[in-house]
């Protein structure tokens, strides 16, 4: 059924065009485009085309949990409309016409998060940040705009070096920042007041999936009795329940001991995302409010278990 329409390409195009767009939104947009182009008539066709598109996307884009989140939401929405109300036509029309609306809503959700989360930051705080999340950044910059004087400690977040990105942005804003290696978190955790991380996906248990290194930071924060906050938009809630980092879908195998003679330099291998279970998380700051991990799981349960 492919007439030169590649869901993956569309998806990547969306991401390229708009740097502010997050992956789930891009996925939804791509799927909407798919519907527009394909224009299936019956309910069965709809479901099938969406399913196959989602599969393709997931296969081609590696390590994308939030992508799945977006696809899951879209799928769920469509299914629900079909099952409960049978009114697919108007729904489809609405989706096709209002593609932009979703994007703007998603962006505004980050502002909402910043509004809600600003109460967590007080003067004289030392905040530890791991990984680069736009939601976290918008929260911190909003706080800085409101003249709250805090300091940031950013971890390098190797191997992706996301920390440097965030460092530059925060330094531009005039927030006092310092960059530390990932391993230094254990020594400095006693000196920080709270920890903020973003999330690529929020699992059904209330735990989060995020860039590698989040889990150790969570454990250290828990040990030092420091609050560990997750800042994320609500459309990142994904229908997964991993028991540990092993359960995550990943490209790189854990502990790959094979050595290829073609490798000239020593390459770092291992997982790129990890899972932090809900007992290490104090609260999730989302555009729907401040939620405890159990509240998240309740909502996810309600959404999926119908």
């Amino acid at each position, binding site marked *: 059924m492919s007439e030169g329409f590649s869901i993956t390409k569309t998806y990547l195009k969306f991401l390229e065009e708009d740097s502010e767009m997050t992956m789930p939104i891009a996925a*939804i947009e791509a799927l909407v485009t798919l519907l527009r182009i394909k224009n299936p008539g019956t309910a069965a066709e709809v479901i099938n085309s969406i399913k196959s598109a989602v599969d393709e996307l997931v296969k081609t884009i590696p390590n994308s949990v939030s992508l799945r989140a977006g696809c899951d*939401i*879209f799928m769920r*929405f469509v299914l629900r*409309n079909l099952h*409960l*109300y049978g*009114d697919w036509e*108007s*729904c489809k029309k*609405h*989706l096709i016409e*209002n593609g932009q*609306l*979703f994007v703007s*809503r*998603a962006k505004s959700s980050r502002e909402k998060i910043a509004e809600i989360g600003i*109460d*967590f930051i*007080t003067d004289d705080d030392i905040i530890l940040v791991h990984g680069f999340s736009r939601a976290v950044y918008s929260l911190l910059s909003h706080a800085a705009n409101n003249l709250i004087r805090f300091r940031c400690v950013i971890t390098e977040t190797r191997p992706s070096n996301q920390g440097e990105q965030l460092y530059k942005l925060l330094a531009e804003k005039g927030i006092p920042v310092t960059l530390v290696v990932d391993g230094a978190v254990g020594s400095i955790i006693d000196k920080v007041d709270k920890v903020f991380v973003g999330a690529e996906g929020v699992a059904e248990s209330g735990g989060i999936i995020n860039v590698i290194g989040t889990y150790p930071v969570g454990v250290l924060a828990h040990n030092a009795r420091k609050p560990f906050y997750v800042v994320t938009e*609500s*459309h990142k*809630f994904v229908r997964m329940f991993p028991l540990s980092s092993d359960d995550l879908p990943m490209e790189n195998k854990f502990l790959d001991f094979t050595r290829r003679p073609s490798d000239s330099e020593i390459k770092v291998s291992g997982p790129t995302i990890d899972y932090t279970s809900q007992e290490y998380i104090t*609260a999730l700051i989302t555009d*729907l*409010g*401040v*939620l*405890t*991990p*159990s*509240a*998240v799981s*309740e*909502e996810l349960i*309600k*959404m999926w278990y119908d």
Partner: protein
Amino acid sequence: MSQFSNPSLRELNNANGNNELNVIIDTFIAKLKRKQIVGSYAIALETLQLLKRFTSAARWTHVTELITQLRALGLQLERAQPTAFTCGNIIRRLLGVLRDEMEEEAQEIANENGMNDNNNGNNSSTSEPLISSMFNLLQKPEEVQTVTKLLSSRNKKTKTDFRQIAIQGIKDLIDEITNIDDGIQQIAIDLIHDHELLLTPTPESKTVLKFLIRARERAHRTFTVLVTEGFPNNTDSAHEFAKKLAQHDIETIIIPDSAVFALMSRVGKVIIGTKAVFVNGGSIASSSGVSTVCECAREFKTPVFAVAGLYKLSPLYPFNIEKSVEFGGSHEVLPRMDPDYRLDAVNKTTAYVPPENIDIYITNIGGFAPSFIYRIAWDNYKQVDVHLDNKSPLEKSVKA
């Protein structure tokens, strides 16, 4: 001078010829500011009295106006004494009741007008649209139209009906508050067995006192109660508490605050009364040493259970604990000080207990784990009422 009331509310009342109402509100606010009313129970009942008069005297044409006025009133009261959480809770409960009624009405109208169920489907799919608004992302913009249509068409329910509903709601609340003990005791009794050693660090909680006495008299459990003194703020009430228990033939032992860790290994359960319970499962107690006692209990894996009436449950999240914890006068701690060598003295009067230190909350509607308290909160309050100073979307859409 409009130091006390919100200017618009005051004007509104003045315009409506409700000077009396202003006076009442002002008196209450003054009392709150000067801490002349103490204790969640007393504050709750007084607030309800005030609300009764307010709803009967206030003038409004549409129920949304009433809601706005109530919100303004709630904001004033909250600002008067931010740590009197029950005040805000009561107002939010009432607002919740009113909004529920409104929604029901809206549904009926929608059904009558034959609008597509689809429009309202997403809204009513969950009890309290907390996260079901996950679908908000994909929702149709027709949503807003529904509301405006609702407002434009005259309500089926007249103003009087809403007033009745409001007053009925208040009456129900008063009933509930005065009768929390029964519900609590029924559940809590089962958690205590015979010959147990209990520890109570919150002696000024009437709920705990009644519960212990009831356990002894009705259920005939024999147990021993350790009461900590809570020096310097609560010692008198601690001694009174212990005396009352002893008079009811319960074996009571008064211990100084420093002995808690020493005796914790022998304690079977810790029972605390609370002043307010937050949506994350943490709570504020009105005696000062309570959080240390709960930490000790954690170390020994001793169960801690907190008793609280539903009216103490607050939809707020404790962002900044330091703001909600009160400090008292340092003369309580250090009565005489050499003026040449001055010291700083710290005197905390309340304590915040984080949710990980509490095992279970016993309320009059049942026992709940701290991680589930948020659900009870959202059952009784509306998300939109949490921040009383924000404009509600209804107001926004009215103006739009």
